[in-house]
């Protein structure tokens, strides 16, 4: 009885961590011996769709699928799994439709909206006002960043901000592609443009630790105009990040090799733990052995900062000072 675990192939960052946690869990299952498990890593959307098709071509001995859909176009592929009557668990990017909802064993995901929501909450606590300037550095143009943005707006709306007021304050960057280098370059361009108005209080909301690392590296480098940088540092109120990369935790602990923990502004990272994949696979196992599972399985987020960083387990590797 095989459980197929299907995730995007990646070498690093959040998806990279998902892949390695998935591998760990798959190895565990195979060692235990009740079930067997196989990991499928897809290089692109079509590749993942084809992997599912081929899997469904021969369902003898296939007892369940755990899948992190590559993108939002996988709807009908998931519906095909449902139609083939194979139990499945969706992880992280959960796609909903009547057919899917009728058959899916569980939707296991972190709270992407929660990331934006918590970030906005923290900003307001730190003193964000309608006269300020929020620079939002987005991950890419897919639904995940959309949710994070939406959560951010949601909290502000709850605080009585109108859409116009939010639009006047929040400015989005171009897609960083979740990349530190691209994030850094975009930050530097933004910094030296008229957009970066140091007469206002500035808040930077990045969608990811990698992007935030890019900003930190840039502030640590020499590409910024010194006089403007001084003004900027005065204006900067907070830099937010997300996911739980070991390197940014090292900054928060002030154990980073080159970047000192900032004291003039608030640096924090909202959790989005890739180890959630293990819970998703667990859910599948439990369901196969007849246990009842909560269908909607949202893992709450927490805000990690210098105070509480020791309580959290980061992912990835970093040699701390």
């Amino acid at each position, binding site marked *: 009885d095989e459980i197929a675990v299907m995730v995007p192939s990646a070498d690093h960052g959040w998806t990279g961590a998902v892949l390695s946690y998935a591998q760990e869990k798959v190895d565990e299952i195979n060692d235990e011996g009740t079930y067997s498990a196989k990991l499928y890593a897809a290089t692109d959307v079509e590749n993942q769709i*084809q992997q599912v098709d*081929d899997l469904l071509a021969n369902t003898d001995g296939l007892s369940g699928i755990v899948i992190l859909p*590559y993108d939002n176009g996988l709807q009908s592929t998931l519906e095909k799994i449902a139609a083939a009557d194979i139990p499945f668990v969706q992880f992280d990017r959960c796609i909903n439709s009547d057919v899917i909802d009728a058959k899916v064993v569980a939707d296991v995901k972190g709270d992407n909206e929660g990331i934006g929501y918590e970030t906005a909450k923290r900003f307001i606590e730190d003193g964000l006002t309608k006269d300020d300037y929020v620079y939002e550095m987005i991950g890419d143009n897919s639904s995940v960043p959309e949710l994070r943005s939406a959560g951010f707006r949601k909290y502000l709306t709850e605080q009585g901000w109108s859409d116009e007021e939010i639009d006047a304050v929040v400015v989005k960057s171009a897609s960083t592609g979740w990349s530190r280098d691209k994030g850094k370059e975009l930050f530097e361009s933004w910094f030296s443009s008229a957009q970066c108005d140091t007469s206002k209080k500035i808040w930077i909301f990045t969608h990811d630790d990698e992007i935030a690392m890019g900003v930190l590296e840039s502030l640590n480098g020499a590409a910024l105009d010194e006089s403007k940088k001084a003004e900027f540092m005065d204006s900067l109120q907070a830099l937010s990040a997300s996911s739980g990369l070991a390197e940014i935790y090292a900054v928060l602990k002030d154990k980073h090799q080159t970047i000192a923990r900032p004291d003039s502004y608030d640096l924090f990272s909202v959790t989005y733990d890739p180890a959630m994949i293990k819970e998703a696979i667990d859910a599948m196992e439990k369901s196969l052995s007849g246990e009842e599972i909560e269908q909607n399985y949202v893992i709450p987020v927490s805000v990690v900062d210098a105070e509480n960083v020791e309580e959290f387990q980061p992912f990835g590797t970093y040699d701390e000072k």
Partner: protein
Amino acid sequence: MVKKLKSFWSQYNFIVIFLGIFLIYLAINGSQTTWTSVTNIFLHSAILGTIALGMGMIILTGDIDLSVGSSFVLAGGLTILFFNKVNSIFLALVMAVLLGAVFGLINGILVGKFRMPAFIVTLATMLIYRSISQYMMNELGQTRYSVDATLSKYQPLFQFGNGNFLTISYIALVFLAVALLLIYVTTSTKYGKRVYALGSNEKAALLAGVNVVWTRISVFVLCGACTGLATFLKIAKDTSFDPATSGKNYELYSIAAVVIGGISMTGGRGKILGIIFGTMSFTLIDKIITALGMNALLNDTVKGVILLLAVGLQMIQKKSKSE
């Protein structure tokens, strides 16, 4: 006899290469292989293959189109919106093909009429088309383009995209039909000869009375139309499109499929038939990697090496010919 074999090899090496890869696949996949896994090779070649057919026509004239992946995605988004409005499979098909053709026309006019280099023109439209598709979705406040499942034509569309005729999926049959049509066009029509003539010696084609500008535009339109048709197939099969990732790298993959199929990048030489095998060979590479359970990060290494081998084999044959 040896000569005959040699000439077969030089003309049909894409079949040999395909068979080689196919045997490797069978060997690795072993008992796991069912008839469906075999027909899946077809199915999974259909969408990329339909685009590769159009790309092949352009490459036969000696040009290139980097924008296919983006046209694919832009036409996809628009067609889904349109389908959700009109609830008609036929109109959606027409729309997809038309849209693709229009995007191809834009490339074609810039390349054919204004003599701008195809590489740059289609690099630019590659950026433009995808970005418009993403912007549009963003403006609509959505995260993907999805066919409305509550429509009465949703099921028939889905059935078409996922049904079989004698175990072969419909969309693979569409791909085959288009391939046969283009094989016929290139081997047996006057238009086809013009395409080859243009790719072989543009100046001579011009002086023989071939309308070079128009022919050039036409292959881009044709490639666009094929891309549009592929869009329709994808919609029927998967009923949704994510503009950030769908069709990514299709320009590279379709070019690779064309080249493995034995068509020369400099134009004028090769067979459309080869593209069928070229695409299937390309599709099989992914399957072999999955079957091997290899580290997916090495996927591209294997792909690259096979690409080199396929082209290398063709080179050997060419070299032995020219000496």
